[in-house]
């Protein structure tokens, strides 16, 4: 497999993992420093299932998501009721605990030496299809009442609750969706690198993902995808800079976040309408009677 395809596959998998952060941070405003741990969970569960227990690969992918969502439920249920800043700390603890388990259960995971000998079953096509499917799922959720309600919860939880929206329930569901997405990406990762080690899934990784989301714009799916894809490919692009590339990478991020606090894309979304290929209609319920009286003040119309 050529270099560009490899980088492309890594980028696709990372972007899929970052979608997990995007739904959580973009929709509910929560910061999880344990998001990469879900990726690790997915990677190890799928790798163990196939290598040690001889589970078929597709089933292992499903299993990775199921386990991550199960673990996510326990974590989410216990931590989402606490204050937002504590939630970040709690997920940090969770992530590092997952990593400690990977390190300690040497017999199963190979510990710090990593889990080697995973067959290479993730094809570029599978990675691409997964990413497209992931984007499609997230887009659908954002376009549904869930997207709206989560945004409402993010902006003003009290007002949202008064509108009949169960904030906790929404946060939990989004948390689980994010966990599932990241875990699936992790499973793909394990079967692409053929080797996983706990060091790949630390809180730093989760923090980098949050940066990617803010880089692209947490209110724009397009932004999050471009942010994740470009920032995960950027270190490769900067290879020529040798040891300076980390510094350059950081500088680029700092500049963007400093000069565009809403992220590269703000709220802008790529679609047929925004590209001017299709005229945006007023939507259903067009011709409403008597909506002309705008200036007449409340009640002056009709």
């Amino acid at each position: 497999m050529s270099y560009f395809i490899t980088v492309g596959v890594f980028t696709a998998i990372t972007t899929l993992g970052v979608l997990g952060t995007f739904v959580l941070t973009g929709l509910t405003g929560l910061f999880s420093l344990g998001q990469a741990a879900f990726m690790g969970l997915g990677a190890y569960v799928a790798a163990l299932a196939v290598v040690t227990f001889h589970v078929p690969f597709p089933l292992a992918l499903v299993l990775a998501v199921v386990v991550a969502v199960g673990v996510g439920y326990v974590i989410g249920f216990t931590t989402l009721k606490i204050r937002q800043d504590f939630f970040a700390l709690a997920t940090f603890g969770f992530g590092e605990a997952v990593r400690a388990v990977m390190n300690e259960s040497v017999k199963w995971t190979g510990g710090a030496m990593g889990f080697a000998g995973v067959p290479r079953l993730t094809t570029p096509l599978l990675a691409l299809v997964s990413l497209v499917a992931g984007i499609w799922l997230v887009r659908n959720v954002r376009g549904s009442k869930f997207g709206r309600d989560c945004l409402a919860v993010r902006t003003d939880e009290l007002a949202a609750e008064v509108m009949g929206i169960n904030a906790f329930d929404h946060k939990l569901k989004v948390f689980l969706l994010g966990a599932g997405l990241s875990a699936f990406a992790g499973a793909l990762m394990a079967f692409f690198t053929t080797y996983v080690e706990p060091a790949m899934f630390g809180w730093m990784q989760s923090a980098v993902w949050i940066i990617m989301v803010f880089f692209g714009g947490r209110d724009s799916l397009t932004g999050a995808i471009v942010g994740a894809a470009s920032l995960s490919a950027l270190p490769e692009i900067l290879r020529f800079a040798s040891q300076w590339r980390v510094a350059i990478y950081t500088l680029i991020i700092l500049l963007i976040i400093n000069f565009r606090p809403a992220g590269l894309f703000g709220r802008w979304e790529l679609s047929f309408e925004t590209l001017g290929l299709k005229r945006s209609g007023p939507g259903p319920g067009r011709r409403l009677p008597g909506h002309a009286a705008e200036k007449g003040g409340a009640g002056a119309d009709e």
Partner: protein
Amino acid sequence: MRKSLALFLILAMLAPVAVLAAGCSGGSNEILIGNIQDLSGPNKAFGLAMTNAAEMYKEKLNAAGGINGKKVRIISYDTKSEVQEAINAYQRLVDQDKVLAVLGPPIANMGIALAPIAEGKKVPIVGLFMDEKATTNSKTGKPYTYMFLGQNSSGAQARAIAAYAINDLKLKKFAILYNQQNAYSVSLAEPFIAYVTANGGTIVDKETFMTADKDYKAQLTKIRQAKPEAIYMPNYPQEIPLTLQQAYDLGIKATILGDNSYIPFATSSNTDPKASEGVYFPYGVDPSDAKLKQFSDEYLAKFGYAAIAQSYSGWDAFGALIEAIKRSYAASKKVTPDMVTTEMNKTKDFPGYQGSLTISPDTHRPVGLPMIILQMKGGKPTTLAKVIPPAEK
């Protein structure tokens, strides 16, 4: 407006890809060798040591006319100590830069991750990844075709000190204290135990700790109760001064055996000379060797900081690789990655700083390469013996 700015920025970021995609392969008058090292991450010191040694070697080689009139060029890529990065860097070296061979990092995890990838890309990697899983496919028991180790493996190192303790020091009862979370420690502890039990010794106690631990007194107290004659402590930089100090404080009189990280961590001023007194440990090179002194002076003058073990063994690994390329030219006037691979298997008696380097085609690891046994005296290591690591049984 915002749209166009965003698109512009994206294009600006993607532009270098096109530029890089366009060129980069070396001219026909150059021999390209890749170098994958941690140059910006936590293992930067090791990565720089190997890179510097390779650059020194290359400069001498090119000054003397290169190989068959062609100059050698090294393309170094940073890994930040991340496996994914190492895989990308290797692929890029192979696909874009079209290198002939790659000098690999002294980090076991990287080697283990790269091994199956190299099987597919068929460009050899010569490195210092001590863990035997980087050179031996644990499923088949056969060596990975394109992976070569330029120093003694962790197994060889552990067997060398175990053999010295049993044969020369006449010790029989051993205890062991190591970090179970650390890949390096585990890769030393297991072969040590295997060798001791297979050669008439006994392990009377095995104690482990974790990376975050700073207090080992509970484990050391248990070890003291087991009354071993010697304690093997194959640990990592930060842990070495602490374990030595705490064993000394507890009044443990048993002989202490260490690993090749004891230079510089047992010899530095962080460790009380009283605590390190009498400790035996294996090392890749002989510090009392005059040849070494010349190298380290040159290294210090060139880079402004001292050479470390990876500088010497990195030199040897790179040298063995260059020799394989030379032999390939001599035989058929041309060279391909597969020819270099074949020639690497024939590496015999390369005069390196570690000793004369011969690579076994059966393991892709050195055979007959000695480990130097050192003993701490007054806070300084003194050379005691050269031990050829016994083969695994």
